[in-house]
């Protein structure tokens, strides 16, 4: 131990010791010279080298102090130039020393050792495995056999005992090695877990960056649309000016009266033609939309399933219907309080209120900028959302603090801003008023709109012409089916469930070209051909009113108050799959990967088709820990993993799933 004291003492004294053989000044001069040489050789590494040098000098001193204590333990196989000279004059030496140099700070920070095995033990345990794995295994087996063979030969001889002991110790050794290797494996798993955690952190950071970028993108796109609108307007003005300029020179004063009349006629004609042109407005905003869709929001795809993207206090009352166009796009909600609200999902803000319906809206659908709402007042209204005055940057609300708010949610949630008055004034297109009872379901695609009403009829509308093309009487179709087939299959059947659950006569409809699917309160799903106006297939299976349905190219999925979700094969008309929940299914929606349902719970039930897995998504999971009970989810919609659910207390939750 006193060695180190001496060492330290000399370390402090430096090369200036008085009792050395050489003169201290000479050594000092040597030090300086050598240090400068070294700095020339490797400039940046000079600092550590000083240290080496000092250490080396200390060693020299020490050896001079204790000349009698040397003992040779190893023969010098190689020639050993002194540490001192090497550390000062060889470039590669200096480099390697600099690379492997550890600062004093780092040396101070040495935590307690709590590893179950040392790295060296790990080395000795894994090394034979790496080099001659097969051999070892074989040896073990053969040895086992040998033991069996040889044990009866001379069981009483001392050699035998000795051998057995040797065997035991080698087996013990192997057991020890196995233990170490086991520990190694588990600690490697821990290491990987740490790496995963680190990567998770990085992922979060990048996700935030992505969110910011999408936010910027959305704003920029809005500006582009705005700019294009202005260009269009300017173009119209320029064209008008040109046409006027071209027309005026040939006009005389006498013609003026006639021209006025002409203009009048022209104007009136344009008014006359406004209805069809108005009904074809989807085409115009669609152009705008295509501009806006230059970039697709992909943020939600990177969220973990079940991540709450947003929660909006949309209404004070039950949500009665809702829909959205694209992830982070526009959402429409309607509630028992008879209001219809338009939301910007990206910013989580209300864009405006749609005024017109005199009762609450029970069914609605939005596609591009065309919104169709069906209300309890028996009317269907069409709206053009592209006519809304809305600035996504929110400057018109006098809130300038938006820039640093990457997702722009919290503010919107904390203090719901009332939408600007009259922002939706130009949106109404026209009203369809043929039904005589409340609209409970509607669906449109292209120019074909089909609505289902409590008056027990379906109406087929042509949006191009803005009028009803045909009326489909469900009761009549049911009666026809029962007469013609006489199997009872197609007839109207009263379900054994009480109708008091306020089941809508027509729970849901979906149309595609001339194909129409409709689910009714008798638990039947009827597939109609709109060209003939006939039911060409009935899907029987549900024992309660059908509340929701959706189909794609292969399957039709239906949800019913009998608590089940059924997946039908569209080609054969047979059941493809089915599952049930604890409560009646009130709403269902699916995308390419999952079927999401609202089944009278505070969570959305999600069925992952790819993994055939059921899981829950929604406020009921997280808030259960906080002893809060969120309201029952009534309505769900999912598109491309972007899930929106509406609850009985008027809150709308947006989730990634």
């Amino acid at each position, binding site marked *: 131990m006193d060695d180190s004291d001496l060492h330290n003492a000399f370390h402090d004294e430096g090369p200036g010791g008085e009792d050395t*053989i050489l003169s201290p000044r000479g050594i000092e001069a040597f030090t300086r010279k050598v240090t400068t040489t070294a700095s020339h050789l490797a400039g940046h590494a000079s600092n550590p080298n000083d240290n080496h040098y000092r250490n080396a000098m200390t060693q020299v001193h020490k*050896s001079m102090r204790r000349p009698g*204590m040397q003992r040779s333990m190893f023969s010098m196989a190689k020639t050993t130039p002194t540490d001192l000279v090497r550390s000062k004059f060889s470039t590669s030496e200096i480099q390697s020393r600099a*690379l492997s140099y550890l600062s004093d700070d780092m*040396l101070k920070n040495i935590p307690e050792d709590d590893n179950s095995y*040392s790295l*060296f033990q*790990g080395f000795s345990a894994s090394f034979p495995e790496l080099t001659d794995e097969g051999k070892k295994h074989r040896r073990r087996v053969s040895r086992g056999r040998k033991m069996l063979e040889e044990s009866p030969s001379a069981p009483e001889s001392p050699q035998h005992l000795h051998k057995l002991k040797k065997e035991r110790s080698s087996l013990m050794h192997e057991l020890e090695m196995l233990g170490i290797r086991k520990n190694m494996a588990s600690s490697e798993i821990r290491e990987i877990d740490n790496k995963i955690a680190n990567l998770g952190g990085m992922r979060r950071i990048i996700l935030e960056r992505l969110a910011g970028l999408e936010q910027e993108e959305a704003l920029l796109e809005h500006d582009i649309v705005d700019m294009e609108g202005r260009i269009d307007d300017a173009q119209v003005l320029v064209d008008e000016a040109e046409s006027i300029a071209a027309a005026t020179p040939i006009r005389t004063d006498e013609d003026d009266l006639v021209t006025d009349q002409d203009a009048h006629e022209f104007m009136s004609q344009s008014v006359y033609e406004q209805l069809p042109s108005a009904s074809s407005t989807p085409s115009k905003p669609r152009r705008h939309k295509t501009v806006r869709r230059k970039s697709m929001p992909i943020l939600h795809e990177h969220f973990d399933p079940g991540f709450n993207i947003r929660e909006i206090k949309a209404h004070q009352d039950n949500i009665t219907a809702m829909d959205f166009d694209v992830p982070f796009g526009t959402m429409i909600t309607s509630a028992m309080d008879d209001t219809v609200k338009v939301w910007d999902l990206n910013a989580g803000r209300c864009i405006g209120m749609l005024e017109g319906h005199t009762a609450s809206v029970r069914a609605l659908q939005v596609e591009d900028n065309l919104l169709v709402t069906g209300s309890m007042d028996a009317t269907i209204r069409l709206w053009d959302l592209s006519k809304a005055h809305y600035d996504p940057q929110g400057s018109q609300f006098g809130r300038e603090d938006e820039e640093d708010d990457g997702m722009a949610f919290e503010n919107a949630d904390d203090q719901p801003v009332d939408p600007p008055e009259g922002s939706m004034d130009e949106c109404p297109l026209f009203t369809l008023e043929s039904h005589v009872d409340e609209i409970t379901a509607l669906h449109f695609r292209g120019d074909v709109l089909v609505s289902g009403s409590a008056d027990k009829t379906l109406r087929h509308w042509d949006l191009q012409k803005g009028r009803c093309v045909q009326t489909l009487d469900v009761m009549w179709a049911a009666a026809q089916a029962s007469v013609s087939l006489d199997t009872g299959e197609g007839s109207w059947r009263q379900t054994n469930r009480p109708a008091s659950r306020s089941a809508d006569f027509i729970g849901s409809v979906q149309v595609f070209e001339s194909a129409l699917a409709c689910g009714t309160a008798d638990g039947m799903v009827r597939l109609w051909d709109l060209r003939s106006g006939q039911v060409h297939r009935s899907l029987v299976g549900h024992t309660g009113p059908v509340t929701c349905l959706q189909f794609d190219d292969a399957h039709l999925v239906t949800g019913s108050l009998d608590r089940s979700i059924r997946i039908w094969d569209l080609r054969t008309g047979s059941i493809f799959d089915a599952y049930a929940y604890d409560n009646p299914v009130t709403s269902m929606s699916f995308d390419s990967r999952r079927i999401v349902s609202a089944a009278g719970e505070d969570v959305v039930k999600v069925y992952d088709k790819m993994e055939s897995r059921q899981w829950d998504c929604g406020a009921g999971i997280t808030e259960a820990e906080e002893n809060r009970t969120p309201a029952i989810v009534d309505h769900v919609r999912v598109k491309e993993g972007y899930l929106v659910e509406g609850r009985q207390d008027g809150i709308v939750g947006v989730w990634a799933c």
Partner: protein
Amino acid sequence: MAALPHAVDAETPLKPSELKVLRDQYEKEGEMVGVQTKFNYAWGLVKSNSRNDQQLGVQLLSEIFRLSPERRRECLYYLALGNYKLGNFGEARRYNDLLLEKEPANLQAADLRRLIDDKVATEGLKGVAIISGVAIAAGVIGGILFRGKRR
């Protein structure tokens, strides 16, 4: 089995094929290399007789020291041993003394200290011999010259 290798262990080189296995494993794991694999390769290098290998081994050990705080304590010993083998006694002593400070009862570290002391003593004596030899030679020459001048 001892948790730390004896100094003798570092003096027995691996076969080139064995070292290659370790290197392959190390290179296979690429950037996400595990501590154990890194150590295995580093230790194989330190055991080698080639000075370049030893230097690389010590570098890898210092990397482990930097990146895996939970392994630092035992790494002190490996670093000390590696530097001792390289002949960098200053570094070797620095690490070994630090380890002994934390674990005074560590037999391997105490052994290593003794080895370092001995090595330093013999080498230092050689140094003294060389320097004094030079001094004597200078003295002799100087004496001759001086004498010649006087004549």
